[in-house]
Each structure stands twice: as C-alpha cells, then as structure tokens.
C-alpha cells in the first residue's frame, strides 16, 4: 500500500521488526518524563503531573498513618501531605541528605485533583522518551504488583521505570481508615 499522508501512517504503523501492535500500544507512553533516583534505581514521572520540586523541609508527622505517610508540609500557605516512596515501595530506609528532594505532584483522586509530595533520593533530569525506547512491563507473577508501572524505558544504557503516579498514590492503603 502506498503512503497517503498522516492518516495512513497512524493506521498502519510499520516498524522494522513488524511487532506492530505492541509498539503502537507503547507509543502512547511516549513523552517527557522527570527522572529521579531511589535506592540506585531510576524512575520516571510524567512531566505533566509534576507541579514543582523542592528541597527537603520540615515535615510535621501525622499520627495513626502508615509509616510511608511522612506527614504534612507547608507549601507557600498550602498544606499538603508527603509520602516517602522508599517506604511505600518497601525499600530500606535511608537518611535524608542535602540531595534528598520532594517532588510535588498533582494526581487525580475520586474527589478531584490533589497535590501530594513524594520524597526521593535525588532528582535527575527531564527526558524526552520516545515510544520506541519503551517496553511493556515484564510480568513478575503474583510476587510483585506491577500495575503502577507504565513501562520500562531504556535510555543511554540505563533502565528507567516509568511510574503511573496516580496508581502509586491512590492505592487503597493510602486512604484506609486509621486503626484504633
């Protein structure tokens, strides 16, 4: 078939390897990501969900919340909750250094958009990741829940785990009623 403008392209995307369906599926994941480090692994967040990045600041602890909910911070007059991703992912705890940062993201919850902060080891850079470099998440079976991973990107020899930050932060665990 001959090429006939943009319409034809999207309809019959041809890649060299011919794995047409998978590729067009992950083309959706293409875009700009903010990458950061956590326990020497690299993660990426969709840039559109990132509101700002701030250095570590005093966090007021909140009682009766899971350990990974560190507490609340004052963000220019707005009080927002902060979650420690290391603890959320079950990674070993680490002391906060001067490189530790809080990424303020805006996620969609049932009640509307909510701003939250996540504590990460270091913030790396904003990357433009093309669809070709993204692969779907391997299935680890029942051991590891991976439905909050959008995909795995391979850039410059590193593997970046692309997170669906909405899923990560709107887990039921987060909104459970606090125990007695």
């Amino acid at each position, binding site marked *: 078939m001959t090429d006939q403008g943009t319409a034809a392209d999207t309809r019959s995307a041809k890649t060299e390897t011919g794995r047409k369906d998978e590729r067009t599926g992950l083309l959706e994941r293409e875009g700009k990501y903010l990458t950061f480090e956590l326990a020497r692994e690299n993660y990426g967040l969709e840039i559109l969900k990132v509101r700002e990045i701030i250095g570590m600041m005093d966090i007021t602890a909140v009682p009766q919340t899971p350990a990974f909910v560190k507490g*609340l911070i004052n963000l220019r007059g707005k009080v927002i909750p902060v979650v420690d991703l290391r603890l959320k992912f079950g990674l070993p705890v680490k002391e906060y250094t001067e490189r530790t940062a809080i990424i303020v993201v805006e996620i969609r919850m049932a009640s509307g958009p909510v701003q939250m902060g996540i504590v990460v080891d270091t913030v790396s850079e904003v990357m433009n990741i093309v669809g070709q470099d993204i692969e779907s998440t391997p299935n680890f079976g029942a051991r590891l829940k991976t439905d909050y991973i959008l995909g795995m990107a391979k850039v410059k020899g590193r593997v970046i785990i692309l997170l669906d930050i909405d899923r990560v932060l709107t887990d039921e665990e987060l909104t459970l009623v606090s125990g007695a």
Partner: protein
Amino acid sequence: METEESKLKDRLDDLSLGLVMVDPDNLISLGELLEKIENLAQEIGELGSREAGLILTGLNKVLEGIILEQVRDKVAAIDLIGQGVSLLQDIERSLGAGAPFGGDLSGFLAGLKAEANVELTDSVTLAEPAKAPAERAEPSPPVPASQTPAEEPAADFSQDQEIFFSFITESLEHIESIEVNIVTLEQDPEDKNTINSVFRPFHTIKGVAGFLNLRQIHHLTHEVENLLDDARNERIKVTPALIDLVLDAVDLLKKMINDLRNSLDAGRPIPADYGETGLIERIHILQQGDEPKVEEPVLSWLAGKKIGDILVDQGLLTDDELEAVLQAQEDGRLRRLGEILVERGIISAAGLEEALRLQAEVKDKKLGEILVETGRAESAVISSALKDQENLRERKLGEILIRDKRTGAREVAEALREQKKAPEGVPAAAAHSVKIDTIKLDNLVDLVGELVIAQSLIASNEKIRSLKDQKVVRDLNGMARITSELQRTAMGMRMVPIRQTFQKMIRLVRDLSRKSGKQVELTMSGEETEIDRNMVEAIYDPLVHMIRNSVDHGLEPPELRAQKGKPPDGRIHLRAFHQGGNVVIEIEDDGQGLNMAKILAKAVERGLIGPDDHLSDAAVYNLIFLPGFSTAEKITDVSGRGVGMDVVKKTIDKLSGKVEINSRPDEGSIITIRLPLTLAIIDGIIVQVGQNRYILPTTAIHESFRPQPDDYHTVKGQGEMIKVRENLLPLIRLNEILGAETSVTDPTKALVVVLENENQRRCVMVDEVLGKQEVVIKNLGQVLKNVRTLAGSSILGDGRVGLILDVAGLFEVSDGFSGRSFSGRNESLDNDWGMGPT
C-alpha cells in the same frame, strides 16, 4: 419526527466516520461510502429539504467521479465531500431546532464544479451569509467535520466551555425560581404576574439553549414556553394538570442539564432520547383546551407502546399478553393497577375485589401496599414496577395509583388555596450584586487568614517588641484592628441567607403531601439568617430527610387529626436564627410526636441498650440517630428504611454541628440543628508534646493545671485518673495517642488540660501550654481525612504545620486504647498496617 431526526443524525455521524477512514485508492471503502450516501439520500428525501437533496446529489457525483478515476485530485475531492457533510449536519441541526436552514451552498457548489466537474442544474437561491459554518471551528481543508458519535454534534463543547458552565448555573437558578413560583401559582391560578414569573425563566433558558445548539433542552423549553404563553393569554386555564405537567417538565429539564454538566465534566455521553415525547404530547393535549380526562394521558402513552415494551422487557408480559392489554384499553377500560395485576395473573380477581374493599375502608393505604400486606402480591414485584416508572418517567401504575386517590390530592390543592399564600414567590431580586466564582472567594478568605497570621507574627516579633516605641506600637495595633476587620468582612462574604435552602423545601413538601395523601402546610421564619456558603449544600440533604420523616411518620392523616381535634392540615415550621456563635435551625411539626415506648423497645431489640438501662427522655429520643434504627413498620419509598437519621447525624457532625430531637406525644416534635457560624477560623490553644506542637480548640477546653501527686489515681493498675475538684476524670497521654515522643511522663511534672466534648470530660496530658492563637483551619484532604484524632491542620506562626486535634476523635481513640501498654511509640499501629520495613 423525533425518531427520524435521530436516525438521520446517526446516519450523518456514520457518514462522517466513514469519510475519515476512507482510502481513496480502495474501491471497497469507496463503495461503502457511496452506499452510505445513497441511504442518506433516501432519508433526506423524506424530510423534504431541497438544499440537502442538492448536496447529496453533488456528493454522489463526486464519489462516482473518484471511483471512475475521473477526478484529478482525489484528496481535494474527499475534502469536498467533507464540506458537503458539514453542510448536511448544519441543515440537520437547523431542522432539529425548527429553524430554516440559512447556510450558503455556493462555496460547495463552486468546489464541485472545480474538482469534479459537476454542475448542478437546480438553481439555488443563496440565503443570507451563512451563520452555521461560522459557528464551528473553521474547517481547514484536510479535516472533515466529523465528531465522535458519542458527542451530541449539535453543540460544540470545544469552544469556550465557560459559556456552557454559566448556562448550567443560571439555568439551575432559573429552575429554582420556577419551582417556587409554580407552587404560588397553584394556590392562585388566576394571577397574571405569577404566570409571567413562571413563563419568563423558560423563555430565557430556551433562548440560550437555542443559541448554544442544545437541541433537547431547547425543544423542551420551547414547548413549555408555548404552553405557558397560552396560559397567560388566557387561551387555556391554569389547572392542577398543567401545574403537574410543568413540574414534570422541570424535572426532566433538571435531568438534561445535569447530564450536560456530567458530559462537560467527565465526558459522559448525553442520552439521545429522554422519552420527552410523552410529556410533549401531554402539553399538546392541554393546549387544545381539553382538560385531559384523568385516564386520557395514560391511554395515549399506552398507545406509544412504551409501557408494553417495559412489561415485555421485564418478562412479566409476553407480546401476546401485551396485545390483549392494548386491545382491552382501546375498549375504553380503565387501566388500574389492580386490573393489570389480575391480567398478569399475579393476583386473582377475587383478591383484587377484596383489596379494593380494604382500600375503600382505610383510605390512605396504597393499593400496592394492601396487596403486599394481604400477601397477594410480592412487594418486590410492585416496588420494581414502581421503580421502573420513576426511572423511565412513565406515568402508568404510579400515576394510576395516585389518581385512585385523586380526590385526596385535589382537596389538598384546594385547601392550600384557602390558606395564606406561601412566602413571596420571587426570590428577592439581587438588585446590586455580583456573581463571583466561589474558588476565588475561598482563595480570598484563605489569604486573609494568612494575613492575620503574618500580622500577628510581626506583632509578636522579639526585635520589634524590644523597640518599645510608642508610635510603632500604635501603628501595629492599628494594623491589627484593620486586619481583624478585613477578616470579619471576608468571612461575611462567605455567608448566604438560608432562604434559598428553605425555599427548595416548598416544592418538596408539596410533592410529599400529594404522595402521602396528607395535607401539609409549610411555614418558615428567619430565612434571612445567614450561614456559611459551604454549609448550604451540605445541610440540604439532612433537611430533606427530616422533613420527609415529619410528613411520613410525624403527621397524622387528616381523619386522625380531626379525631384528635387538630386542624386537618399538618403544620411544619422551619425556623432559623443566630444564637451564641451558632446558627440554629429548627424543624417543628405538630404531628403525633415520637413514641417513646416504641423507641425503647426497638433499641432493646437491636441490642443498642440494655433492658434495664435508665435513659432520660432526651436520651431516648436521640436514640433514633443510631445506625439501623427505624420504628416504621413499613418501608415506603419515602422513608422508613432506618438509614436516614444516622446519616443526618453524621453529616451534621462533619460540619462540626449538633443535632437533637425533642417531642411531646400527640403534640409534635422539634428537631434542633446547631451549626458553628463559621468553619474556617477557630481560636486555638497551642500545646507542646515532645518536639511536636498541636492545636486544641479553645471551645473544648475547660481549664488546665499541674496536678498534685494526691490527685493522681489509678484503676486496676491500668486506667489513670486525675482528680479535678470533686470529680475523677480519665487521663489521656497525648504522647501515646499521637505517637509523639516526650521525656515528660510524670503527670505531676506535666500540665493537664481538661477537655470537654458532648458532656464528657477527660484530662489530657501535655508538656506545656504555649499560648493562644487564631488559626485558619485547613482541611486534611483526601489522604488524611480518616485520621480520627485530627480535625484539620493549620500553619503556625513560624511557618510550620500544626495539627488541630479533634476532641471527639481523641476521646474515641483513647477509649479504644485503654488496655494497651503505655510504652510510648505506637509500634503496634505500624504492624497493623502490615507494611513498612519488617
């Protein structure tokens, strides 16, 4: 006409879609496109639009040209087809809105000639410059005007959503005023002014809806407007049937507008058909000046076979049975619930006789209920049939049921007319006011709150204090005064009179009184009392529920009232006023009051209290606020399910309010709701525990002191108590409950604050009391809203976040806590979650 139009619309959508996907080299896809155009041509022919026929002929020829390879530039030719389709959609839209097509075909025709060498011999009179194409985004050549079938193509939402949102807001306001005015109209059907005041909002909504191409809304309001126009020109009379009809139309309109809002918010598609045909037929019947015979509307809808379809779908009726039913109807028989049930074989004819006899004896029981009670029909069947009608807005069984007691409702209407009129129908015209986005308002209030804090930070700054300069002090005080004033004004902006909410009750009471067959008079006072804007919406549902309760369980039916020597109309009075920092709302009825014995019995039965417990009268009455409590013997669709009152209490608790009920047998009941005047700012006392600071609301604090060793007692070695004057009060160690480490563990070396909540008092142990501060309460947000010990958060003077403690939650948690070890950190809590490092 309606269905044909929607079919047409579907075909046009289909055509657009086909156009997007067509491959000019693929004969098969071209062929499919051609087929679609030909089908369309047939249907358009039935509508008789000349321009449309012309366009289609052109499209046909172009397509043929492409297929036969007679066309130079295939891409341009496809674009041309796209243009044609857009024009067709415009035509379809105008037809739907009842207006002639005013578009310009010349461009299209020129294109036809240029690209495909097609010359159409029919001369077309060029109308005025096309408005239609300009309304949509300018079609740039490669993009045909296709829209996904899910959207209503008539209204373009991509342009300027703001217009739609303000339309929604304004329409809902109009609808509110319609509802109030129409009840006034019911009482005085001759009053021209009132008719006008109902007519005008419909007219306005119609106009804007037409402009925005909201076809369904436009159509409906247009019909109602015509009806009302006839009424105000005295061509027809305002009858109860007309009032009902308008109210039904209002309900449907509300639904349409809500669906519109959902579609804008969440992209949900708008239903193509609201079943408004039945409604519109009723309108036409009324317009012809016939007071429709009570049964007539039912018949005409039956003719539309909607009921039949439903019954068949429910599997309760086969097609043959349906035929039989319809045949019987044409014989002029009355379709009553009883007869239909007999036909369906659900009850026997004898059973029906008996039930009807019973009904005649006990007039206010519904036929359906009698049938259920005498075991002749399953309540599930009846309620499912009733529910279906409500959902589909069909007036069959339900309407018949109400009509069976038609006399009751008529008497109600007449009685209403005899009484004093309801308060001024038209809401006070907002002569000089502005509409402000509530988000902006809330922002402003937040900022003012922060200003107050910032201002007090400066005032308490050490360096400034040490200046000891008279002028500086004076100026700072001046600033403090102004800031206070500013704060009061900003808070004042958030207040709205409760009148709006009260007026919504007018229609509710009217509907309730008809449904229940009881006569109810609603009066109100204190509508100008202002409450916080955020509370207005929240308080609506509880009010509705409590009024329903009053009508359903409180007020007696007219005969019973007559026996008791009470006036035949039940009275419900809504009252609002300010009292000591609170807004008080009272709902008073003069019905039979609460039955203390029944409540006690039910409570014991449910295990809520022991059989020997002594409760004060007030405590007994307030038992009804517990979950699952209902002394109603039967469940109507209005109330009695036992899920209402506790939800009411929860809602009011959430607003930091209190609700209580009091009653006198046979005299009536009164429900009192107390709400804080303002939610946003509280006076707080800051306490310190270890490194953490917490805020306690001043209103909950009784006193604070350092206990003497003699005052400290233990119970069974576990429960700790402090003697406060003559009372022993339980001690709560904040560090344990809140997980805050502190080195101060000896109560005699710490400070004890006596807190009170709902008549309970506890001692709370803290390291220090730091001071008093006005704090702006910030919501905890979704993530933390379930932490019971916290009421909110705030920003303290030094910029750090302070947690505001919820006294009730504190007490609850500590009650659950007693018995746990007092070992400091709450490791137990972490383990309960089963997460975190193990």
